[in-house]
């Protein structure tokens, strides 16, 4: 029995795209009668024929997208234990807070004195994030984690450049998230992989061998992408600092240690936070997020502009004046609406609540790990995982020819969203599970039971898994064909026709 609302096939294959609902002359739009003289668009600038948008009534829109929504799974319908993604329940109060006209209706270029509330909110949130991470100041401008990474790397670059040499490489553990190396390249650096030990931790000796004057810094997440705490973190950061390098903290896993430990105290110089992970701002199918970046005192001058500053008289302003700043990383002030939700989450939970969030996240992950370990052993059994763990289906693969993806698809038929699979890349048949603090014991038990059932079925009836899912609106989709016969808009002809 599932505790959520699994996504089920709705019988008839559905009505196609919104364009298939269109009928000439139908319309949902309405505008006031034009109350001034129409103006002439110069001949040469005119559009020749109106764009091929669908002609539909509001009623058609509502039914179409309501139907589509029912073909989608979200945190509001059940557990969403994607490792590394921290899919938490999003408290509804944040939505009410963000809808306030004083926030939603504010133009980004309004003069500061008409936006004091927004500025104060940003100021307080920056302060809270600095306290949580142990940083001196932070920018709230980066619109997502990856953007925060690049911002951090550009700060790193600015720092080294001022010292005369931007340096050439950035060290990244082989288990790192893909955005780390990708951001590194965009920061103008070459990514050099740092091998992990058999215990899944940074190989400190090898690291020592890798550092040199060419190394701009090291990017790390702690707990790392395997969900393990880098116990030697103090030595690690010291090693990098010794050659003048900076250490970057990928905050995607910050939700494991809030109130328990702080990146700043571990020796990190730059920290980004994924508000949409740590602070439960809704992912909305893949975004928006926000990726605030905190830095130590010495790096403050490089933070992007504009920044929120507080004048002695208590008024707030957006300040552009920061000659050593890397500049702006977003067209305006970042994803403000997301930051309002992060503020709501942070101050609703408070110092005690945030610590509890991390404690429960770690407890839930360990409880779930222990519930499925028989069938899905930990990839790195020697260390205790924190808020997430990486299990492996390698044995099932060997014994029954059933792969991690097959298990995931079967779990879907059993009513749950499966874990991340095949990440981190360094683990074969990886299943990376992060329940987060918001799941109940019953839900964890239900999910674990589904995983164990899938494992048992893998041995008794592997085709059940190979064929899965069978209950969903569509079954396994032909991704190869999607890439071979590109149909990226409704104007391209269908992949069917080949």
């Amino acid at each position, binding site marked *: 029995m599932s505790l959520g609302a699994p996504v089920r096939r709705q019988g008839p294959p559905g009505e196609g795209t919104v364009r298939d609902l269109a009928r000439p002359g139908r319309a949902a739009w309405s*505008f006031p009668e034009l109350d001034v003289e129409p103006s002439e668009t110069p001949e040469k600038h005119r*559009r020749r024929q109106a764009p091929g948008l669908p002609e539909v009534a509001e009623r058609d829109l509502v039914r179409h997208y309501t139907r589509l929504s029912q073909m989608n799974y979200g945190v509001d319908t059940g557990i969403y234990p994607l490792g590394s993604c921290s899919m938490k329940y999003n408290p509804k109060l944040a939505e009410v807070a963000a809808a306030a006209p004083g926030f939603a209706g504010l133009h980004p270029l309004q003069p500061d004195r008409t936006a004091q509330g927004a500025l104060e909110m940003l100021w307080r949130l920056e302060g809270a994030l600095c306290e949580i991470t142990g940083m001196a100041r932070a920018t709230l401008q980066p619109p997502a984690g990856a953007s925060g990474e690049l911002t951090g790397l550009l700060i790193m670059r*600015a720092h080294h450049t001022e010292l005369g040499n931007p340096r050439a490489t950035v060290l990244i553990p082989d288990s790192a998230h893909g955005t780390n190396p990708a951001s590194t390249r965009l920061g103008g650096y070459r990514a050099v992989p740092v091998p992990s030990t058999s215990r899944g931790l940074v190989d400190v000796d090898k690291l020592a061998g890798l550092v040199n004057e060419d190394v701009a810094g090291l990017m790390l997440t702690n707990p790392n992408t395997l969900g393990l705490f880098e116990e030697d973190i103090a030595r690690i950061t010291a090693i990098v600092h010794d050659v003048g390098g900076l250490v970057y903290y990928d905050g995607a896993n910050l939700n494991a240690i809030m109130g328990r430990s702080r990146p700043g105290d571990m020796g990190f110089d730059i920290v980004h936070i994924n508000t949409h992970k740590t602070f439960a701002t809704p992912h909305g*199918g893949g975004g928006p997020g926000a990726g605030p970046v905190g830095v130590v005192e010495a790096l403050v001058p490089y933070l992007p502009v504009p920044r929120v500053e507080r004048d002695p008289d208590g008024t707030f302003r957006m300040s552009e004046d920061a000659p050593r700043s890397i500049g702006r990383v977003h067209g305006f002030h970042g994803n403000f609406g997301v930051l309002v939700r992060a503020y709501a989450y942070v101050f*609703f939970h408070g110092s005690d609540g945030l610590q509890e969030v991390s404690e429960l996240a770690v407890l839930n992950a*360990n409880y779930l790990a*222990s519930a499925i370990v028989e069938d899905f052993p930990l990839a790195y059994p020697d260390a205790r995982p*924190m808020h997430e763990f990486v299990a492996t289906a390698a044995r099932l693969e060997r014994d029954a020819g059933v792969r991690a993806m097959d298990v995931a698809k079967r779990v879907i038929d059993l009513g749950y969203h499966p874990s991340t699979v095949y990440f981190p890349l360094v683990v074969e048949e990886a299943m990376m599970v992060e329940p987060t603090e918001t799941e109940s014991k019953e839900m964890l038990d239900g999910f674990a039971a589904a995983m164990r059932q899938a494992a048992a079925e893998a041995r008794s009836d592997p085709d059940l898994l190979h064929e899965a899912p069978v209950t969903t609106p569509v079954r396994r989709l032909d991704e190869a064909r999607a890439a071979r016969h590109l149909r990226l808009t409704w104007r391209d002809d269908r992949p069917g026709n080949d």
Partner: protein
Amino acid sequence: MLAAVGVPSIDDLFSQIPEGLRLERPLDLPRGVSEQEILADLAALARHDRAADDLVCFAGSGAYDHFVPSVVWALAGRSELYTSYTPYQPELSQGVLQALFEFQSMVCELTALDVSNASLYDGATALVEAVNMARAGGRSRILVSGGVDPRYVETLRTYGRGSGYVPEMLETPGGRSAPASEIDPDVAAVVIQHPNVFGLLEDVTAFGAPARAAGAMLIQVFDPTSLGILAPPGDLGADIAVAEGQPFGNRLNYGGPYLGMLAAKIEHVRKMPGRIVGETVDVDGRTGYVLTLQAREQHIRREKATSNICTNQTLMALAATVHMAWLGPGGLVELGRQCAAKASYAFQALTGLTGVEAAFPGAPFFKEFTLRLPKAATEVRDALIDRGFLAGVPAPWVDEATLIVAVTERRTKEEIDALAGAMGEVLVS
């Protein structure tokens, strides 16, 4: 649960954290509060702002006070969409995936280009991505029209530091771009904004011709609300077109979350950043949607990825999808028609005031225009706030006297007349 885990206490779960690194004190933050208190706190903050609902908004410069129909968030807010993640399990994500496919389709219908991705962070970072696409071919230089929003140029400059280029600015005599000349073989792309930062209509084709002849790409920054009446980027020869998608479905939100739109010719598809949804079939032949061409992306290609973007602005893209479908062809044309007509009415009314001049007399514009005032623009703007108007956005990067005024379909003749009246008073006072 602790028993099942086999530890006596929660603290034991954190034992891996070395002594010295444990935070032995509570975080220096207020303790948690009730829902009622946090809502009251944020409501109090919001009340210290003067939003577009009480200031009549003539500010634009990249973010506009357009009308968002009620149906948009009634649908984009559906929690199965709202609380879902990147659709890595397509069987559980057909709702988001199909909606994004429709988004891509409508963006291509708008721009007359072949392919669109599933959104980027915003307009400025979309331009950065477009430039990265252009530079992927090996050429390096980026020439940028002086008519491009300076905030976009600043953003380019920031990211250029990492990627190794400095945007080179081109003259804009009379506020409009001259054809980009002297294009050497190292020029990767020329960038133009149309309508440009001053609101003026550009001759995109003429601007781009020499560049394209020299094998460089033409990148156009466009305004999606203009494409009901203005020729689309595809028809103007753009290889890549990017835009701030905020006007479709998104409130002003003090600058975000918005969405970056990026569309291109099909030959560039493998250089495109971010997620792209494709249609395919399932094992039973049923039509379905998946993320495709993922080999471009960071989670597969890592440092070789076309971009580092992961989380994007899907939710805003869903809102834009509903808004575009709400508009349809008729609505989009009417939207453009009304913006243009009201802007030119406002232009007449304001340039009729003594001392107020058009910064670029006679130059055609869309929904935004630029004035030169007889007083400091910030001073005038501030004085008008006390009269209930957000009169526009000063452009100190041009000079003290310059004000850029935007007029959307939401503005009424009465409001425009009232603004003119109030500005008249302010200028003589």
